[in-house]
């Protein structure tokens, strides 16, 4: 009864403040897509929050309660009606029995649509070696609905990487499972194939996939991964490779395409295809003694041609961005699907920037070759694991800006002119309750065009059956 009374209380004799409200999460000035889930927020210490939202073009709505909890339908309407405009928020809060009214703040509603179904990501504790409660999830970005795609409840005791769809389309996806029942799953149009990707000619199983736009190939890196732990108080963990190569799987024949240029004595990793599928971007570093010299492992960005018709890798490697000599390392190259940009992480060393506080997102304009730090989205803490929406106007990335350990997901807009808006953390119904109580980190996020369909129970049977197809080799 007390709650019901409280929630219908409206501001009276509010004292006007000149400062903007201290809302959580910080949604002030962010750029959002129309149709996104309501950008609910909390105000610490407030007993009641009263919010009036006015569209700069048309419409208004209102929320009142313990936190700003907007009605989904009304929210969708007002964002649709104000595409290209702003939403102006007038927030009043009752603290210690007294009402205050803050200065208005705005959110910008982009003209760029975000019509993808939602996001996929892996949720796990931000731990070190053992992950008990781990799973791949999908979230309808237009509502608050989240569901497991493949979680440890269904596949107990299995460490799994996040699934990778082909340019956000889950019609084609691949997942790598580590551990006792290791396998690489390739699912095309609902047909699952479980592969053993370690061969006599390769150093280990396939990891870190990226689909060719044709859907006939998937590039993987082969990483002999190790990790060490810091004793000091600035860093926690360092992930490094004893050795690594890159390869391409022909999913029609289950053969790995090996090229000596992608299997050198140096370390090659994170191969990705360009938007037109004619180029492979990948990162490469001189090999060093690890872990003693892991700080010398610095990766540059290289390209090599790929002919999808013949399935042949080119004969020349181009280093398109050399940063190792400047004390930096490039990882996670992700070309936009419209062919305009390439986004990557820049850190001081290594190939696993998630645990590098200095890791920032950078953007290369593939038309001009210019590259720049994305200051609009970077923070003092780690930014990594970025991916593009299907129309390449939005990107998602993980950041540890919240507390330095738990990665959360942020979404940002890039318009036709290349202007990048202020990012916003993935909306939740009650963000403070959700994020502050959550013991999960989010990583490997990606947009998904449609809902991912994976029969987790059938997958479970198949994982533990250990029935695998051994991939073949296609050397060139």
């Amino acid at each position, binding site marked *: 009864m007390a709650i019901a009374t409280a929630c219908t209380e409206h501001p009276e004799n509010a004292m006007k403040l000149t400062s903007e409200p201290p809302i959580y999460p910080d949604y002030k000035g962010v750029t959002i897509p129309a149709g996104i889930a309501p950008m609910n927020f909390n105000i610490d210490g407030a007993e009641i929050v009263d919010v009036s939202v006015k569209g700069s073009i048309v419409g208004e709505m209102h929320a009142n309660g313990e936190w700003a909890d907007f009605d989904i339908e009304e929210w969708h309407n007002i964002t649709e009606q104000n595409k290209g405009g702003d939403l102006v928020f007038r927030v009043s809060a009752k603290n210690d029995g007294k009402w205050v009214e803050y200065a208005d703040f705005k959110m910008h509603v982009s003209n760029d649509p975000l019509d993808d179904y939602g996001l996929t990501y892996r949720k796990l504790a931000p731990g070190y070696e053992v992950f008990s409660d781990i799973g791949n999830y999908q979230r309808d970005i237009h509502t608050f609905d989240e569901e497991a795609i493949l979680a440890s409840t*269904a596949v107990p005791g299995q460490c799994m990487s996040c699934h990778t769809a082909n340019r956000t389309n889950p019609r084609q996806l691949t997942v790598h499972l580590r551990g006792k029942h290791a396998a690489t799953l390739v699912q095309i149009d609902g047909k699952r194939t479980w592969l053993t990707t370690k061969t006599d000619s390769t150093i280990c199983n396939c990891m870190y996939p990226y689909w060719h736009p044709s859907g006939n190939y998937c590039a993987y890196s082969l990483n002999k991964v190790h990790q*060490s732990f*810091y004793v000091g108080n600035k860093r926690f963990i360092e992930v490094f490779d004893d050795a690594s190569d890159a390869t391409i799987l022909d999913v029609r024949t289950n053969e790995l395409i090996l090229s000596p240029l992608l299997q050198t004595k140096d370390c090659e990793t994170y191969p990705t295809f360009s938007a037109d599928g004619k180029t492979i971007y990948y990162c490469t570093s001189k090999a060093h003694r690890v872990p003693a010299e892991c700080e010398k492992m610095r990766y540059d960005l290289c390209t090599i041609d790929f002919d999808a018709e013949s399935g042949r890798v080119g004969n020349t490697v181009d280093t398109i961005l050399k940063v190792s000599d400047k004390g930096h390392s490039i990882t996670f190259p992700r070309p936009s699907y419209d062919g305009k940009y390439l986004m990557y992480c820049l850190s001081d060393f290594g190939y696993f920037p998630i645990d590098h506080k200095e890791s920032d997102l950078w953007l290369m304009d593939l038309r001009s070759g210019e590259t720049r730090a994305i200051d609009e989205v970077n923070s003092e803490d780690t930014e990594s694991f970025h991916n593009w929406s299907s129309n390449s106007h939005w990107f998602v990335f993980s950041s540890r800006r*919240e507390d330095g350990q738990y990665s959360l997901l942020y979404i940002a807009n890039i318009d036709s002119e290349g202007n990048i808006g202020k990012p916003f953390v993935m909306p939740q119904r009650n963000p403070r309750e959700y994020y502050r109580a959550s013991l999960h980190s989010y990583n490997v996020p990606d947009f998904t065009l449609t809902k991912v369909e994976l029969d987790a129970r059938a997958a479970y049977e198949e994982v533990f059956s250990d029935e695998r197809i051994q991939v073949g080799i296609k050397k060139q």
Partner: protein
Amino acid sequence: MKNIVGKYWQSLLTLTFGIGVFIFWYILYPYALSFQEELQLFIYDSQYLIERLGYSGGVSVYIAEFLTQFYTSLTAGAIILAVIFVILQQLTWKVAKNEGADDRHYPLSFVPAVFLLYSMGDENILLGLVVATIIALSVNLLYTKIETNRWKIAAIAIGLPILFWIASSAAYITVGYIIIREIRKNGINKESILLSIGLIIYMIAIIIVCYRMSPYQFYRVASGINFYRYRHIVSKAEIAILLIFTITPAIAGFITKWQNEKCVSASKNNSKTKGNNWITRTETLEAIAIALCCIFVVRTGYDERKYDIMEYDMLLRRHSWDKIIEKAEKKQATSPTEVSTINFALAMEGRLTDRMFEFYQKNSEGLMPLYKRELTSTLMANEIYFRIGMINTAQRFAFESLESIPNHQKSGRIMRRLVETNMINGQYEVAEKYIKILKKTFAYRRWANEMEGYLYNDEKIDKHPFYGEMRRFRVTEDFLYSDNEMDQMLGLLFMHNNDNRMALEYLLACELLTKDIGHFMEYYPLTSNLKGYPTVPPRSFQEAMIYAWINQGKKIQDCPWPVSDFVKQNMAKFGQIYMADKNSQQLQEGYFATSYWNYLFFER
């Protein structure tokens, strides 16, 4: 007196059993309670409840976790379990009575509870199963109140799905009971066979529906989620427990019926006395067998090695250093986890370098245990790393042990440690996250409230007698942890802060354990940097020094280092005996048995 005992013998037996169970947990296995408590965290919030209401058996699990949280008080834990076991016995008896069991077979009603006590030696059998069993037995009693078939069918149709949702696999006790009861009452006829088959099919259908509604595998839904700590294992003990609670009441009823028939037949033969004697003999045998089980068999379910480690874990958690040493004095411990705990306790009592060779030593892993993908050893090792000032390593070990809890539970003890490491590291946002969770618990709320006052307050932490010191001890330069370079890491710790006595003692002990006398002699002078460190070296150091001296071919009496005459004389004696006969028993006895030389020469 005899009359009173005769009148109240059942109550007295139950009371004795209850007291026995209390003593069992409180005196014999209190560390099992501590272990159970530290592997769960009952949170007072709606989300926690909703999560448990969301799967079959979750209600029982919720009640069990609610009860387990009170195990932080060992007395409360033992009382709770004593009461639970008495309730189980009483319910078993009431169900048996309904099956026609005679008062003379009262001792049989203890059998399932005693078997459960034995089975709980498997520490992974969780209280959820026990609570669910209580619920199922209670439902059995309710069933006997229903008289007409129509109401029985209605009760089963409505009640069984609810029971399965509340008590999961324990519902099989009720299904089994109904089948046995109906066959007993009506005999094996078409009606009872149809009822039995129908009931089993209905039960299977309920499981399938629950399976469809949950993300879990079929066998897990069928066997009870969170009734066993390892979610991918269906425990045989769990099946046996369900079976024994199902059949015992029926057996009691059957024996009574059988005996009564025998009695009738005996009285027909005018041998009343003979019949009565036979019954008395059976009762006595029952009582003796159960008493023997209680006294001897139950403990065989409790693996000594496993429970020894649990005891060390509890003593470590409670900082009972003297009790750790006392335990080690009584029984030699050899696993790295135990040895490191003993060495740690010695260090905390300031006796490590004096007494360490009185106990089994193997190598430096007995000082700083290496990381293993295993819950208890990692959890225990975190205490050592934390206290010595390797805060990040302690955090890593704590985090790994948290993630190693097989049923994805959280732990108040570990979360508390994570608050501490994050506070010391100045990661206040993360510490706050854990504090907010701990504030929603019964056992850790007060502590969390207190720690909340330290958030974002560097000055206050710096002034804290322990956290402030730990903040000063931790190294601020990053370097990678290496199992092979433990001495270097300890050296860096001490060089970072010369007040860190434990780091220096561990460094020197580490060199002794790795038999690296050269480095020991090189680092020993560092003790002069330590304020208040005794000028007379501890025994093991003296023994190492004098050995280092004579090993250079020099005479004992010329030794310039502070080695007592007593140690010198023993060194000389040891040398003489060793030269004469390396295998002499004398080297394994008396002073020599606990000397560093013994370790140096004989420990492989």
